[in-house]
């Protein structure tokens, strides 16, 4: 087969040539013109607005290096809630706020709370407003829960050698977020190409509403946790596991 000697590069190009995506729909132009017909002519936004957007885009795209530069400075500051929210978003983490406080690391590592087993994954899928992601590495969950507002999916796996493993996920573009308070190091990690945060030791975790006030549940002490963002969904994996195991589970999510 002559293709065997070709480079991957050439094969990908050949593949591109053979993929047919079909023709645009016949009525496309008319449909678009019809829909925009009643709308005002788009003006040009102000120079200032454009600059703000560019700076924001630049920061979003480079949040890791920006963080490396600013990290030391920011971590020491007690930021007001609205500012904290902005900072979290700038760093590409929709839905997660990390606050560092002086204090000692909790000496015990709790097991994550177990989700009830009243729901099947399929039932949860129908309830949720986003597509759930499930790690292949753990198999089917033993417990599945959906929050009352149908925005958070929680799954747990019990009975493994590591004890309970818990995965919470939600649409990261929502208004409220997880707030984590830590007294120790947090590591920025790569989860299969997605940005992630690793909390190696026990820490407090709470939910915040859009205005920064704590959600219904009180803060609780959490086991080591990996938080990452994947195609708009924010995921939070918790258990008495190390980073290597957490990453292996996280990268098996489909």
């Amino acid at each position: 087969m002559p293709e065997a000697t070709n480079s991957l590069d050439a094969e990908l190009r050949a593949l591109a040539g053979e993929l047919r995506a079909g023709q645009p729909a016949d009525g496309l132009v008319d449909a678009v013109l019809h829909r925009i017909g009643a709308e005002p002519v788009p003006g040009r936004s102000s120079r200032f607005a454009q600059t703000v957007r560019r700076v924001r885009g630049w920061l979003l795209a480079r949040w890791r290096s920006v963080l490396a530069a600013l990290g030391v400075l920011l971590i020491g500051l007690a930021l007001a809630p609205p500012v904290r929210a902005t900072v979290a978003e700038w760093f590409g983490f929709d839905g997660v706020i990390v606050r560092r406080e002086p204090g000692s690391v909790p000496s015990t590592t709790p097991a994550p709370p177990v989700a009830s087993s009243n729901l099947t994954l399929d039932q949860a899928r129908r309830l949720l407003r986003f597509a759930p992601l499930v790690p292949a590495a753990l198999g089917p969950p033993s417990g599945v829960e959906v929050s009352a507002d149908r925005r958070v999916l929680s799954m747990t796996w019990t009975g493994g050698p590591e004890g309970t493993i818990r995965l919470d996920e939600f649409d990261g573009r929502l208004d409220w977020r997880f707030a984590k308070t830590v007294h120790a190091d947090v590591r920025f990690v790569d989860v299969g190409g997605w940005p992630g945060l690793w909390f190696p030791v026990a820490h407090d975790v709470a939910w915040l509403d859009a205005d920064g006030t704590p959600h219904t549940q009180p803060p609780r002490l959490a086991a080591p946790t990996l938080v990452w963002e994947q195609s708009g969904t924010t995921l939070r994996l918790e258990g008495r596991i190390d980073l290597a195991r957490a990453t292996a589970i996280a990268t098996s999510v489909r």
Partner: protein
Amino acid sequence: VARVRAGETDAYAELVRRHAPIARRTAVLLGAGPDADDVVQEGFVKAYRALGRFRDGAAFRPWLLRIVANEARNAHRMAVRRGNREETAALLATDLLYRAGDAADPVRSVLVTDRRARLLGAVRELPEPFRLVVTCRYLLDLDEAETATVLGWPRGTVKSRLHRALARLREELGAGEVVTDA
């Protein structure tokens, strides 16, 4: 774009006509599946509404494709939620086979098709950032700067992720080869 902003709707019709094929290809390859037509239409409407934010002198194509790509990914997520993922995958594979099937030499055509299908399968199995960068650079034939705009990543990230994606593909396909030959 300047003419559209000056109120010439016909100028926008021209932009739609010119960019519709690449917009459709983007929608299909990023997983919009049967919703591709809707995604393209929605993309053009949203692009029109967002024209105020278009920066003078920037390229229109990658800017538009970024909007289409976001729409396509949303459509894909919705389809997965409805449980249609398998259907979407099947659609692409059938398309591919159909095209390669009309080659002059049927035996060779089957071999080539098989190989292409395997490569496409490997691309689809990549983690999302890798899949996106390979799709943009190769399957949509965008250059590095355009890819950076479409995906909203710095150019350095495009470069390094593409490099890692290709290494991973080589690994996957190499492993497959041994099994086939044995």
